């Protein structure tokens, strides 16, 4: 599973990344977490407000730092 964090290096993106890592660990999922920082690449996902969260190339959230448990729920779905 590939989790991508979309954001040009703001504090919120770092927070989201931490939460994603924690969620993957709790769910015992072996996930690669990548950061996408190029603004055009971010917009390429159709995201207008960062940070954005992408799971297996699908945008699942944008404009908000999701908690680890929220991300956990999304990981279960996909």
């Amino acid at each position: 599973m590939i989790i991508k964090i979309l954001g040009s290096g703001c504090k919120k993106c770092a927070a989201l990344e931490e939460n994603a890592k924690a969620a993957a660990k709790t769910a015992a999922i072996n996930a690669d977490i990548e950061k996408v920082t190029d603004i055009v690449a971010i917009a390429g996902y159709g995201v207008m407000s960062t940070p954005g969260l992408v799971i297996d190339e699908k945008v699942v959230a944008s404009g908000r730092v999701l908690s680890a448990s929220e991300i956990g729920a999304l990981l279960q779905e996909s």
Partner: protein
Amino acid sequence: MREVLIWLNDQLLRMQWLSDLVTLLVRDGFGLDPTSQVGGSIHFFIYDVIKIFILLSVLIFSISYVQSYFPPERTRRILGQREGLGANVIAALLGTITPFCSCSSIPLFIGFTSAGLPLAVTFSFLISSPLVDLASVILLASIFNWSIALAYVAIGLVLAVLGGTLIGRLKLEDQVEGFVYQSPVSDHDNDGAISRRERVSYAAEQVIEIVHRVWLYVLIGVGIGAAIHNWIPETFISALLGQDKWWSVLVATIVGVPMYADIFGTLPIAEALVQKGVGLGTALTFMMAVTALSLPSMIMLKRVVKLPLLIVFIGIVTVGIILIGYTFNATAHLFV
């Protein structure tokens, strides 16, 4: 009643109490005459820095709270429902309550365009967004007065509506990079999911983030303002930018366009220029040129639009700003 309002305006917005306090500090604390050159610059610097940071924090907090109700996805949906000039007007208005940062203009441009919004509407939004925001309006009212602040908003919105409409008329859709139209449209609107507590913490985060981003520009701006205020001879400034000099607006534009600074950093410069007898229009032109156009934002825009469209955009905004400057200089007596 009127006196109460004037008193409130003087104390809350112009912060007369702060000016008095700083006068005391400069006179008794530093042992300097606040009307002298050194004392005057120190007074200008301390007073303006504290005032701008207080107003900035309060304003960004309130505006970010309102903003949390208008994420870009919602703005896009609202705009998608309108057509014609009405859409441009709404776009210009929504531009005033969306984020201050020019760095968000690219995702917004791609997001709006790929969703099928016309270029006219997108550009109205892109012009208004950095140029006019509620925080700058209140700061303008604080530094100058309410009629200047309202006039600034009005002409900023008119420029956004007309500029966007004109770009739409030129049919430059093929001058947008192809990948923009192919970008997917994602519509994750968290609007319903956000609680009041989240909005408050979002607003507080925005204050920290924006103050963090602009503090240096504010210090530099106030520093330049203080220098203009007390050190650069009035004869020099009026020779270059004086009211009677026809080229003053052009000079302000040429200097301002490539510059990148926040409106909060440019306000103290404009303030000092006006106090030195520079025309109001010239000072406003300088502010608009700095905030609406800058080299970094042009470089970013270049990644999503082709050169002709970029030149048309820069050209329209520049000409608009120059016209506004001359109009304001000619009618300044109505506002002061």
